[in-house]
Structure formats: structure tokens, C-alpha cells
């Protein structure tokens, strides 16, 4: 048995784990959590939600896409959704208030 090879493997593994623990991990294109029409979050897996699994996987931040007009969700009404968000009437947007602005 080549113990030097095993030691090398184990060292690489330990180094990767340490790096991953310390690094900022950014997924430049993550999941579509809130498509404007279907509003389907990914299903839980092994009893954990998508975001719980992302966090456990060390993901620090994720670019979450808003939707794919026409191909997957049908026609989107973003203008309507923006209006609902601004008026606070959408259930998804409860608690959301426009921030003050300098303009």
C-alpha cells in the first residue's frame, strides 16, 4: 500500500475543506426562486429546503433570476408585479416598503 499517496490525498482533501470554509462562495447564476407567475421554490430534499442546503454547501451569495419570459413561465406581468410591490398589496411583498431616495 502506498501510504504517501494516501497522505497526499488526505492533505488535498483537508486543504480543500479549509479553503472552502474560509472562501466567499458566489453562485453567479443560481436558481429561479420566485418566478413571477409560478412562485415555486425548489422542493425540499432530505428534509432541507434549497436555501438550507445552499448555506450548508458554503454558498455565500447567489444571483437569483427573476424569470424566463415566454419559455418557461408564460407571459410575465412584471409591470403589474412592480406596481403590486410598490403598493405593498402583493402577499409576496408584505413588509416591503420603498427605501427613501435622494431623487
Amino acid at each position, binding site marked *: 500500500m502506498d501510504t504517501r499517496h494516501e497522505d497526499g490525498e488526505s492533505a488535498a482533501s483537508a486543504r*480543500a475543506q479549509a479553503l472552502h470554509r474560509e472562501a466567499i462562495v*458566489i453562485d453567479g447564476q443560481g436558481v429561479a426562486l420566485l418566478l413571477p407567475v409560478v412562485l415555486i421554490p425548489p422542493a425540499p430534499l432530505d428534509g432541507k429546503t434549497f436555501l438550507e442546503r445552499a448555506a450548508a454547501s458554503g454558498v455565500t451569495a447567489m444571483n437569483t433570476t427573476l424569470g424566463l419570459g415566454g419559455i418557461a413561465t408564460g407571459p410575465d406581468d412584471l409591470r403589474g408585479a412592480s406596481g403590486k410591490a410598490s403598493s405593498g398589496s402583493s402577499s409576496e411583498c408584505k413588509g416591503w416598503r420603498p427605501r427613501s431616495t*435622494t431623487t
Partner: protein
Amino acid sequence: MQGLASKIDDDLTLLRILHRLGLRVAQLTHNERNAFGCGCLETPDAGLTQLGRACVAELCHLGILVDLAHAGPRTAREAIEQSTRPCIISHANARALRDNPRNVPDEVLRALGARGGVLGVTAYAPFCETTPGVRPTLDDLVDHIEHVGQTIGIDHVGLGSDFFESESEIRFARFTRSYRAATGVYTSPATVYVEGFERIDRFPRLTEALVRRGFSDPDVVKVLGGNFLRVFREAWGEPAAGGGAPPRADDSGGRPAVVRDTQVC
């Protein structure tokens, strides 16, 4: 946001509202032609339109990052030239390794890197195949990271998994019927990602694959997120007081000057 033009009815004044609602990354096109430019499945790629140029200018002004994933090569190149801030290609791979219309030719990679941008290498299997129709592995994905790093520098490589776990089998089937040229033979969302890096849970495996391939510690950290973080800082800048979009110097109410001029003509 993907396929921006259709989402805003080509109305650039909506960008300011979307910025206030939190939009920080916008993709000019999906796979098709729209009012801003051409998607990667359009031939020929006619490049960025006049409205597309105005859109890029407005996105840069507001501090919304321009994402050129799905764009055709000419559209992407012209948007990179037009942009005053670094752009990203959030999820695609290298066309030099896998000839797929969604992948990025080296000439576009060079333009992206020269302006400080980042490509997010993606786990989508059709974009990583080494043998057509055979599901690729995590090692094949690392080949793309290595290629982009060697072509434009490791400072311009990131990750964009495109893990689309909310995709149902029915919706996925619709998607693959629409985009056979880009999606290949894969018939299930469960198998359309590279083997070994197929779910959000697998990020630690990618780090280990990079280490085993011989990437240095600083380079691994850059690929995992350091490079995207740099671009986010450059694209978003310091937030304006109150978190709102910066005011424009003119009285256009947010409408880009070039659009106003076009309407006069």
C-alpha cells in the same frame, strides 16, 4: 433578470424602478433576438441595437450589472465595448472546448477579460460534454475553468451553476423542445448537470476538484467568489444615500438621452 427587453416592454424608464426594487444584474437577451440585441441562437447576430446601447448606458448609470449570458457573440462584444463598467457572462462555458451556441468564443472571452469582466463557468451538462450525448463529469467542468483561466487570466473566472431545482419534468421538456440546439439529449432536470456537481449541495466537491487539479489557494478563492465580488463592487459602486439610484444630471426623468434623441429624429 433574464431576457430584459421583454420584461420591461422595451421601456428603459422601468429600470430605475427595478433598481429600487433591488435588481442588480440584468441580462440583455435570452436566446432570441429582442429590442436590445441578438441571442445566441439567432443567425446572423446583428449586434447591439440603438436601444440596446441606450439600455447598457442606463444600466451602467444606475449600477446594474450587465449580464451577457445567452447573448450572441457580436451582441456580447458590442455590449462589452459600450459598457463603462465590467460585464459578466453569468453562466456559460468555453466554445473552444465544447462547440455549443450557448458557449463563449475565445474572442468574446478576451474582450470580456480586457474590460475586467468575469465568466461564470456552468454545470449545465450540454455545455461541458467532451463526447456528444455523454454526460460529462466534474473534471470536464474544471477543464473549462482551466481554459478560461489560461485564455484571459484566472481573475476573470467564476461560477454560475444554473442549478434550476424548481424545474418540473413537464417544464423542462418544454424547454428542451424549444432549445434542442443548446440543450442536447438530456431529458430530465435530474441529469442535465455534470456528474459530481449536479446540485447546490455539491459546491465543496468543486473546491476539492480545483485543489486536486493543482490550482493555488489564492486562485481557488478567486474562482469560488473573489472575482465576482470584485466585479460586483466595480459595477454597483457605493450605494447612493438612502439606497436609491443616483440622480441623473438632466431632466429626462430617467430616460437615456440617446433614446430622446432618437425619438426627435
